[in-house]
């Protein structure tokens, strides 16, 4: 975003996104068919005459002064961008430090396990392949299949919800009942 603005500042070119190869200036409505179609045609292929900016058009004379109204000055804009990047860097460092601490805890736990019980350590280190039970699961029917497909080891459950701006209308499901687990 900011790099394009800097390029705009440095460029001495007129503000043109693309050159239209077809000249369709000053159209004449020959067949008065469906008004919807003519509307679509008018929107998709605006006249090339430079009268005003259009939604799909490439001539934008007003971008310069609109941009001048939008940003206080080039220096102010660059300072704002730098401040934002510094803020993002700070967040990134904090996040990385937290992950590093968590990783060290995990490493320490695995080392302790290795010293205590190598068999359990080997089992804990096994990779979980989500495809491994798929053939047996495909042969099951009904409730058994539902139970087997509900949790696949090695995959995230689909009920793991992404955070949204507002909470769900029904709130938390307190009345969950367990399915019979066979594994």
């Amino acid at each position, binding site marked *: *975003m900011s790099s394009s*603005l800097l390029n705009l500042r440095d460029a001495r070119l007129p503000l043109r996104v693309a050159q239209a190869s077809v000249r369709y200036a000053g159209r004449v409505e020959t067949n008065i068919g469906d008004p919807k179609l003519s*509307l679509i045609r008018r*929107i998709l292929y605006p006249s090339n005459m430079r009268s005003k*900016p*259009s*939604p*799909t*058009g490439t001539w*934008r004379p007003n*971008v310069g002064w*609109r*941009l001048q*109204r*939008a*940003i206080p000055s080039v220096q102010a804009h660059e300072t*704002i961008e730098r*401040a*934002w990047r510094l*803020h993002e860097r700070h967040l990134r460092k*904090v996040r990385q430090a*937290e992950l590093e*601490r*968590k990783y*060290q*805890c*995990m490493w*320490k*736990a*695995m080392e*302790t*396990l290795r010293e*205590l*019980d190598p068999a*359990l350590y080997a*089992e*804990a*280190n*096994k990779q*979980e392949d989500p495809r491994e039970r798929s053939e047996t699961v495909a042969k099951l029917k009904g409730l058994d299949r539902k139970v087997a497909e509900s*949790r696949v080891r090695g995959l995230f*459950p689909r*009920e*793991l*919800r992404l*955070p*949204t*701006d*507002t*909470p*769900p*209308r029904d*709130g*938390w*499901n*307190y*009345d*969950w*009942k*367990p399915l019979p687990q066979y594994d």
Partner: protein
Amino acid sequence: MLPRNALSACSRRTPTRLWALSRPLATEAAATEAAKPSSSTLPPHPPKQRRPKPVINTGIILNRSPLITREPTLFEQAYHAYQARIQRALFNPFPDEFYFKPGTILEERFKKEEEEREREAFGPPRKAAASKDSAFTESESKSASESSENQSDNVDEPMPRVSEADKKGDVRSLDRRMDRNLYLLVHAKDQKGKPRWRFPQGGREHGELLHEAAKRDLFAECGDHMDAWIVSRNPIGVYEPPLPADTEAEVIPKTYIFFYKAHILAGQVQPDGKNILDFAWLTKEELESRVDKEYWLAIKDILSDF
């Protein structure tokens, strides 16, 4: 001491022809001379006395992930508004007549909202345009407000970000602090009978893998009316509870508690009431105030800060 004792014992009993091979080294000879009187005075116990095998237990860190996004800081809000303004400046004009049939209520509502957004981004319209549009906008706004009042009954309002549980401060609720990670703490009596706040934990049966043991222990302590997903086979942390100071350190086995991370997706804890007295869903700071100091030092790096 052990190898030297064995060697010296061996050297006394071996026949003469093996004497040369099993003769202790010169450096060890002096040590064994010194050790012999002390070894004879020790009480007789079997030579292979070791601490009994360490006990491996599992604990669960049950986490309710955030349900809503974080509130952006003032700087972030200002920056987002600034970027939105720049985007508005660089957009091509919007084809109103393509999306809205001219003269409809929907088009009026859209125009009103657009005007609002433009005013928010760039400030009130310039004077030349204002004088032309002011009469127009006043009449439009009246009709639009009437229509919006009719429409607001149909339009659904989103749920508030602060729930009832937040206002009451109900720590057992899973709707509290929806922007934070909540962890399950359980109020249970330890071996001495003193109630402590801790994560759910339990023992391991013979032949059971650690993550399976963790799952079983969680349901044993907290009831199985929870859709809990244990993330991985690997433990995320280990805790060695301190051995009680009064007993002999060599006799009792060391216990290790390996923590496993789990997410709760639905349901609620239903404690049996016998071993588990109470439970709470707490953020990291609230946890610190409830839990013992040395327990906190062991677990604080495992948990998410936010």
